[in-house]
């Protein structure tokens, strides 16, 4: 019998290694796997490369991981926000490296990783500073920039419901990067608010099929986490 449901956050993250590339779902607070990130802080892996759209908000989640000094490099599209002071301070002090990536490239580079694509030509950023030094090509009269996939060692996904085969559904716009990063990492860990028996999810509506998911861990729904402090 295959059972991908593990009993605790700690168990789900036990083998994350120093130097790992960790893909983290979420856009602002929506879809941010805060319980898994707290677990990664407790687990203590260091020298991490973190991939997320943002650079953490306030003092929780990614911001707390940054503050704990576990992040060597951040790959993201929009680090600057009203409450991104933890990242701002570390970046200005030269304590964290930033690779700034247009948001569509961030998504597509991880999609490409999950789909086995070696590289792709893309029109975004052509002629801008973010394409400096990159190979370009004119295809059918239009300029493109060569972009390479972003593979993860680990992906941390916040989903809504899961089953023991790792099938997942999401809630509203908290889906965002979840299905993309699930396919792009060697080990995808999904936190869910509830688990169901096999067959309990409508197969027409499974968003991430279990082939992309290695571990599922149930967390308690905390109202505060869906409220503004997490946004």
């Amino acid at each position, binding site marked *: 019998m295959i059972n991908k449901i593990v009993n605790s956050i700690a168990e789900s993250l036990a083998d994350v290694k120093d130097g790992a590339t960790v893909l983290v779902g979420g856009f602002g607070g929506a879809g941010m796997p805060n319980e898994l990130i707290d677990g990664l802080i407790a687990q203590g892996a260091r020298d991490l490369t973190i991939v997320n759209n943002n650079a953490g908000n306030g003092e929780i989640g990614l911001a707390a991981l940054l503050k704990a000094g576990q992040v060597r490099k951040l790959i993201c599209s*929009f680090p600057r*926000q009203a409450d991104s002071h933890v990242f701002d301070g570390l970046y200005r002090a030269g304590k964290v490296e930033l690779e700034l990536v*247009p*948001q569509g490239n961030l*998504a*597509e580079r991880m999609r490409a990783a999950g789909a086995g694509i070696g590289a792709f030509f893309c*029109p975004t950023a*052509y*002629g801008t500073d973010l394409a400096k030094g990159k190979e370009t090509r004119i295809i059918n009269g239009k300029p493109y920039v060569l972009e390479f996939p972003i593979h993860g060692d680990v992906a941390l996904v916040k989903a809504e419901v899961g089953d023991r085969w790792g099938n997942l559904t999401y809630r509203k716009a908290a889906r*965002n990067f979840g299905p993309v990063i699930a396919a792009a990492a060697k080990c995808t860990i999904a936190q869910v608010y509830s688990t169901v028996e096999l067959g309990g999810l409508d197969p027409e509506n499974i968003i991430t099929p279990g082939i992309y998911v290695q571990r599922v861990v149930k967390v308690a729904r905390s109202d505060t986490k869906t409220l503004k402090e997490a946004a």
Partner: protein
Amino acid sequence: MSADVLNKPQGAKAWKPRSRDAIAARVALDIPEGAYVNLGIGLPTLVANHLPPGKEIFLHSENGILGMGPAPAKGEEDWDLINAGKQPVTLLAGGAYFHHADSFAMMRGGHLDICVLGAFQVSEKGDLANWHTGAPDAIPAVGGAMDLAVGAKKVFVMMEHLTKSGESKFVAECSYPLTGVGVVSRVYTDLATIDITPGGFAVVDMVEGMSLAELTSLTGLPLKKA
């Protein structure tokens, strides 16, 4: 000359700039029913408040929403349902959720009819600079701006005509880092609506009382009537 004009103190302007809401309302006039539209964060977000209620227009949000509706009533916020600016929104009946790679395929694949973006500068060739001032101590952030700039069929820019220190944001060449090359279709400002054409800037309309000569002088570059 009318008494009204004669009575004005010397140097007084015969025109009043459009308010931010008036610029947004002007943009909304150019969005047809059935259009798939992405409104950038900041000033462009205001356009949503001016879309005519009788028209069905599909708002796209980069974080995976089509058919985005207005802000919820106080107390009804759902933080799993936010817009690109991370503010709570609603979903219209018929709306849909999808993941990020699909959302950006909608942009980059040319499926969006219009995007509305803010800008620091727009050049005569339609180059757009809106993501970074280039200041060495500034933390750069690009988000989805470069994807929208190359992907939407029409890129509308909404901005103040002049900087706070009175310099024109219309330039021969952008001095700020570029967001996209030759991407802008039309610019809406507090003074005028201006098309980017192969022959340069073409004025579609101006605020009441503005002359082409005065607008040209403020803009600092040649303007023609569209």
